[in-house]
């Protein structure tokens, strides 16, 4: 982790002085070394030789565990939404001896398995915020106590509402996205894990560890039936979030000033108008 490139400490990536990590790693303690002529561009120059106005063009934002978690989580949500819908509205199995088929049993098994993978992955992702790079905790900790941050949320909201012409550039989540992510993904996801484990504990029994750990959820909302209804509504919240999330990613990729979709694949955030 310590070898990962670091963004400037002041949180502004567009500062006049170039960040250290763009200094060639090959420079053996000398600030005067210049990259080979054919490779001479913008980012390979030592600080003091960089032309005025040069800007970094790519920053490593999503480290490998974050990207791996994102895709595992996405797959789990797809599987969970489909199997969850089928548990509430089960398809009919062929008639005949009940012991010969296990359609509902298999759907539920897949749901429970995917749910527990999602739960463990979410927990691991949470722990990673203490070990990952400086962007790793953005998902869980939107700085809602900062006035400046809310101003940025408002600015981004205006950009999405076509009220400003040019968007800003953000290395991590833009504040509006971070807020949406926290309110419509992190919180619902935590609720789905807690309620899902509580509903699962009804099957494992009142003397199981699942019931000891999550059974309180069964009574928090009055009765298990209500919790089941809320769990079902939670699925729709996550489905709608996914639709918005995918659209926002495409929208940002096409019309913002930084890369989005390729970033969650490679980890690198590109700022396409920096080099001009």
């Amino acid at each position: 982790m310590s070898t990962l490139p670091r963004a400037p400490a002041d949180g502004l990536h567009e500062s006049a002085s170039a960040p250290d990590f763009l200094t060639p790693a090959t420079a053996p303690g000398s600030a005067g070394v210049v990259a080979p002529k054919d490779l001479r561009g913008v980012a390979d120059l030592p600080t003091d030789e960089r032309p005025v106005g040069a800007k970094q063009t790519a920053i490593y934002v999503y480290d490998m565990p974050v990207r791996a978690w994102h895709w595992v989580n996405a797959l789990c949500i797809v599987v969970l939404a489909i199997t969850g819908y089928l548990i509430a509205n089960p398809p009919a199995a062929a008639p005949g001896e009940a012991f010969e088929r296990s359609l509902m049993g298999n759907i539920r098994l897949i749901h429970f398995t995917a749910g527990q993978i999602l739960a463990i992955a979410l927990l691991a992702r949470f722990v990673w915020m203490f070990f990952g790079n400086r962007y790793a905790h953005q998902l869980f900790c939107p700085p809602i106590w900062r006035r400046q941050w809310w101003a940025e949320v408002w600015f981004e909201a205006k950009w999405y509402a076509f009220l400003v012409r040019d968007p800003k550039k953000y290395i991590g989540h833009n504040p509006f996205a971070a807020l949406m992510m926290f309110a419509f993904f992190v919180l619902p996801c935590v609720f789905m894990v807690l309620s899902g484990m509580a509903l699962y504990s009804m099957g494992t029994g009142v003397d199981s560890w699942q019931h000891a750990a999550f059974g309180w959820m069964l009574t928090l909302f009055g009765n298990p039936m209500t919790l089941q209804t809320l769990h079902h509504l939670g699925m729709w919240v996550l489905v709608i979030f996914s639709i918005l999330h995918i659209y926002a990613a495409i929208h940002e990729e096409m019309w913002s000033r930084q890369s989005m979709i390729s970033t969650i694949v490679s980890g690198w955030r590109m700022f396409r108008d920096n080099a001009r």
Partner: protein
Amino acid sequence: MLARETFYDVIRRQGISRRSFAKFCTLTAASMGLGEAHAATIAHAMETKPRIPVLWLHGLECTCCSESFIRSAHPLVRDVVLSMISLDYNDTLMAAAGHQAEAILDEIREEYKGNYIAAVEGNPPLNEDGMYCISGGRPFVEKLKEVCGDAKAVISWGSCASWGCVQAARPNPTQATPVHKVITDKPVIKVPGCPPIAEVMTGVITYIVTFDRLPTLDAQGRPLMFYSQRVHDKCYRRPHFNAGQFAETFDDEGARKGYCLYKVGCRGPTTYNACSTVRWNEGVSFPIQSGHGCVGCSEDAFWDNGPFYDRLAKVGAFGIESNADRIGLAAAGVVTAGIAAHAALSAVKRMVHKPGVGAEDKNLASLDGEPK
């Protein structure tokens, strides 16, 4: 004055033979799942312990709990009422009436302070100072607080006393309130159900009398021996659930074949009760066996989780009653339409305003989303 007789004294006085008494003890031990050895424990308890006085109060209720109770087969309610407990007050069953009946309440409270059981059927409505339920000429809530105040423990019979039931369903105009929210300083044993199973009711009483302690309760105050598993867990139609064989309507082939009633709204998977094991009317049947799904009558707020014939409870939102799927699908549709419009507008904007042309540099310096 009520004599402090032991159970055995009473039983023998009624002409029941020693042999019949032994049979009763064995049957009771078996019905509670205690095994042979405990028949002797029960017999010993009955021979040595004085009968526990029980004051049975009726608040806002329909008497279905009493109706169920008097049909108990193992043990017979006759044995419970006449031998095991001293049912000193039950305004539906007792012979005394009026002031004579009400006087018994005070008498027991003084004589057996802290040593009697208050069994409550129904609940007190708290709105208008309790005026929606008058018992013995005064608000029931006052009587309840008085009688429960000196009791050893309180039994909440049925869903009314345990959760509130139909009179507490939305919008609950009388503010009917379950017993445990009014009586907060005594152990309250909830025996929910609308009504509870007769054998569960007598089983709870027999346990308390026999072992002189309250049964182990779950987090919500229900005896674990009867409420630790769902109707679903012991349902004889469960194999059809796992297989995916469901009755789609009440008159289709699946219903005739006895398939799972999940899709016609069975609440068994979310209902903790002993129906599928103890069953009803001397173990003759229970709702699912009769071809009707469980309505979840022993769960909190089951009236508000209708309709009874749909797996997804209705969700009241924006003045419309709908279910989670219809709401979710409608919201997803609206969001998708909004996205299409937004995408179209974004494309138009891009055509009108090419990026990089005259972009203001003042917008370039930005937060990375997380100032540190």
